[in-house]
């Protein structure tokens, strides 16, 4: 039996599966938040979700629109001040994985959420760094999820808001007290991991039905594929049902006042 699902759903389910039960995860808003909560509602009931608004171990029933929705506080174990969140919980080394989205990512998994073009005369001004620069360096490792496109996957980001492995892949070498950095990138087409040596992103798994050509066309550099290229497991019926219910609940809640 083959299930019907969208590439977005495939991305969310794959991203969710990256989280192991019991991990502490510092969650970015949007796709990471969707994936992290799906993980919590499926295979990882004891995953600990932390949002930068200060909400520790939160269990929202609907996805937050903002990083500080009331739902996050009401369902949290406790809520701390934002300086404490960044100092004790993130910088203090209590976070296993930072889960981030981005506007632009390059071959060394550097993230740009600052701007497109030149800093002094931007073509497009993006929201900026937010929590990402320190999440990416203080968390044990980093998962990144975003839609695959040539605009997003560029050879070199216009601006390194947030360190992946630096413009030469060596940005974490010999830096004390720094996390492993991005260990996987989950898109709607595939899963990528950094090459253990060069730190360049390599496709390790293609989603069902996706071709190498599609990935190549959607990537702004000469993307490499792992020798043992895998096929990403399909979503289960249970995962899809729970994801769809979560999104439906969320939509209903946000449509109201």
């Amino acid at each position: 039996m083959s299930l019907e699902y969208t590439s977005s759903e495939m991305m969310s389910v794959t991203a969710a599966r990256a989280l192991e039960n019991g991990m502490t995860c510092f969650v970015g808003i949007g796709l990471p938040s969707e994936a992290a909560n799906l993980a919590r509602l499926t295979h990882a009931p004891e995953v600990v979700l932390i949002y930068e608004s200060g909400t520790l171990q939160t269990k929202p029933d609907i996805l937050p629109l903002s990083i500080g929705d009331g739902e996050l506080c009401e369902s949290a174990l406790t809520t701390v001040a934002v300086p404490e969140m960044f100092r004790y919980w993130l910088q203090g080394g209590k976070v296993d994985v930072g889960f981030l989205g981005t506007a632009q990512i390059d071959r060394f998994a550097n993230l740009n959420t600052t701007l497109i073009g030149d800093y002094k005369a931007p073509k497009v001004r993006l929201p900026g760094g937010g929590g990402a620069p320190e999440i990416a360096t203080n968390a044990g490792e980093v998962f990144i999820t975003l839609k695959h496109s040539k605009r997003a996957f560029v050879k070199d980001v216009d601006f390194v808001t947030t360190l992946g492995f630096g413009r030469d892949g060596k940005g974490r070498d010999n830096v004390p007290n720094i996390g492993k950095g991005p260990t996987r990138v989950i898109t709607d087409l595939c899963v990528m991991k950094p090459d253990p040596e060069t730190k360049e992103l390599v496709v390790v798994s293609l989603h069902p039905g996706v071709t190498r050509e599609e990935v190549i066309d959607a990537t702004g550099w000469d993307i490499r594929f792992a020798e043992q290229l895998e096929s990403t497991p399909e979503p289960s019926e249970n995962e899809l049902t729970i994801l769809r219910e979560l999104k439906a609940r969320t939509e209903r809640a946000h449509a109201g006042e």
Partner: protein
Amino acid sequence: MAEFLSLHDAVARYVQDGATVAMEGFTHLIPFAAGHEVIWQKKRDLTLIRMTPDIIYDQMIGAGCAKKVIFSWGGNPGVGSLHRLRDAVEKGWPCKIEILEHSHAAMACAFEAGAAGLPLAVFRGYIGSELPSVNDQIKFIECPFTGERLAAVPSVRPDVSIIHAQRADRQGNVLVEGIVGVQKEAVLAAKHSIVTVEEIVDDLNAHPNACVIPSWAISAVAVAEKGALPSYTHGYYGRSNRFYKEWDAIARDRDTFTQWLDENVYRKEEKR
């Protein structure tokens, strides 16, 4: 001791043209009523500090109150861009503004350091980021014990900070509850502070370790019922996610924005 003032009088007294102003509230408890009062009083040349400028600074920037914005994430949460901020930065409308941008960790630590009376915040940050190349206020120091290179930023010390909170007692002590963000730090770091509250009560009924800001650490308390809308007040009313989404269309265009401002701030405030 905090003085009980009308919001009009509090803003008139403490928000001077050219001042450095922090209006805080991390998604929750954003002091919109106070922001509208600042717009209505046509304050100018403000340096606006906020981790997340949000709609409140988008409105103030569009209304021409700001000459500079210091921030760490400038978007409409979950929706998209802040069009008035972008129009000011990219096209200088209604006036040119300067921006100085940080990461959240830097600003959170800078507020903490400001509350702590220190000139700088030291933290493990900005490693590998290019933000230090466009923000000359980011420096690095060496730990004298370990030799580790750590980031340093100046502390935040506003002329005036404005926050919204659930309630004050009759002495002017204020209870903040829920997502408390950097609000206490903003008040303690500032020379002057205004706290708007939903209501004044006889007894705060706070638990032993509640986030209570004593009256003597606040300049003025002003009642502003629903003073955080379209943001929210934990225990009082929810966030208007609908308005946050609607704002995108309103703010995208100078004319619709100007009309909105006229109808919802200038004329509404005049009716008071």
